């Protein structure tokens, strides 16, 4: 279980995150939502070890993540970044193989096992046919799937995604999130997804964490967090909720 205790981050005199505490469970998607500047991306960056934290504790299965060297952390936590500004001249298979970096020596010579894991990751993300293509020949949706495959190749129990759908069209958004949900359930991964689109969060997340101005505004099941009075206050616009197949459906009034 991924456990975040009293996490606080200060940049200069600004508090970016204030005493955030929550836990995330295997096999479930935890959707992280909130207005711009609420601290969503900072939270993911802190968990993946990119920025130092000022107070609090981060742990996975009772092992503290804070003092862990980069490669040990990368064997527990994989991140799927947005597919922007990727180096063009790499083959798809080489990119997925980079997911094995925390298990390789400096020379990066893949073992049999590395090859098998990469094959599995590519099969799971339906990217085997792209193996020899160059990254810059692919569509945005395909590139995002490649980055998901790379994260799967890291064989980590925790998966972090920062707005993976933000520059994808509707079809690719749904494809990617369907795929992610299936993988999270099959592989019992603990997934944290930052999502801007509240309706996608409602559709895919098993739990929702709502951040506002660096504080945890609400944390719970989608139907308990995605409520008109809570969201109206945080986003500061009138919001109406309809229920569709038992899932909250969010409209600005």
């Amino acid at each position, binding site marked *: 279980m991924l456990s975040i205790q009293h996490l606080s981050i200060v940049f200069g005199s600004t508090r970016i995150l204030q005493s955030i505490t929550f836990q995330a469970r295997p096999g479930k998607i935890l959707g992280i939502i909130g207005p711009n500047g609420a601290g969503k991306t900072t939270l993911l*960056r802190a968990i993946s070890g990119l920025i130092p934290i000022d107070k609090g504790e981060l742990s996975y299965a009772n092992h503290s993540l804070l003092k862990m060297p980069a490669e040990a952390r990368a064997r527990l936590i994989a991140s799927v*970044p947005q597919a922007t500004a990727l180096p063009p*001249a*790499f083959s798809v298979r080489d990119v997925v193989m980079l997911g094995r970096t*925390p298990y390789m020596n*400096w020379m990066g010579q893949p073992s049999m096992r590395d090859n098998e894991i990469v094959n599995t990751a590519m099969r799971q993300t339906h990217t085997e046919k792209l193996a020899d293509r160059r990254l810059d020949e692919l569509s945005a949706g395909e590139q995002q799937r490649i980055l998901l495959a*790379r994260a799967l190749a890291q064989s980590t129990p925790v998966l972090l995604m920062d707005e993976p759908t933000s520059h994808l069209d509707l079809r690719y958004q749904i494809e990617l999130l369907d795929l992610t949900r299936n993988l999270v359930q099959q592989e019992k991964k603990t997934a944290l997804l930052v999502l801007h689109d509240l309706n996608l969060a409602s559709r895919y997340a098993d739990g929702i964490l709502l951040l506002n101005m660096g504080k945890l505004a609400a944390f719970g099941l989608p139907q308990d967090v995605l409520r008109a009075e809570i969201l109206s206050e945080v986003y500061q616009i009138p919001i109406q909720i309809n229920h569709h197949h038992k899932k909250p459906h969010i409209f600005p009034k």
Partner: protein
Amino acid sequence: MKSLVRALLISLVLLVVSIGLSLAVGSVKIPLATTLQGLFNPGQTQVDPIVLSIVWDLRLPRTILLLLVGAALAGSGCAYQGLFRNPLADPYLIGAASGAGLGAVLAITVRWPASTLGYLTIPAAGFLGAILTVAAVFSIARVGKSSPITTLILAGVAVSSFATALTSLLLINASGELRRALVWLVGGSTMSGWQPVWGALPYILIGLGSLLTMGHALNVLQFGDDQARQLGLRVNIVRLWIIVAATLTTAAAVAFTGIIGFVGLIIPHVMRTLAGGDYRRLLPLSIMGGAIFLLLADILARTLLAPQELPVGILTALAGAPFFLFILRKSKQPFW
């Protein structure tokens, strides 16, 4: 991997041919057969001892030195382009050339007595100048625990300009030594004999060897520092390792031949158009390509206006620029 072996074999053949040409060509014409005989059968008496001396004491050490320097410049240029993720990066980007220039010109203008020791002060000063400048740039650019790439490049440019200005100041005040200093600055002061070969060899071998282990790390770094960390790479250590290795390599090259431009910039790009962006392939191929290119440029430098010799640094740009532009024009896909 199969394609890498094939590419390395092709470049090895080209390298051997270039070495042969470099040994055979010069102001004294020696037939290839005689050269080979002189090289592999020096005990045989048919070979004129003067010819033997030209091959053994002049051409062979010069060939080996230039081969090493070409490999050093292209290898470290390739590593810097990968490290800084910048197609304009070359071995001199963060101050190695301007620092070496300042050191060497300083040594030339203070006019040490022209003893052997005095002669060796120039490469030593160039070597020290390069290393001190890069170390200064690296420590100035530190923010907290790491040195952000753009800060490094900007600090490099600023410190380089400063060192270059100091060099110009020295040159304006220097009277008789001006020509010697200028020749050094355009890469025309290749020293003769075996001494520079033994001086440069350990640094270049160790430096290039270290860089060759960094191919995978450079591949990971192409995705940016954040993703590299998330993939488990110890970015700060890797960056320091590459900078130290590339700087030692470059400094050793600059010390014994002066500042030879363009090799470290274009050879990695040429290899990138031929072999793609994978640094595990790009590094060894750039090293081979740099050695071949500099040998060929030196052959031209020795023969074009023979018996006068042109500084090889001028030739690398004169011959290299059109060649590179041709490759750039022909390349069908964006290679950066």
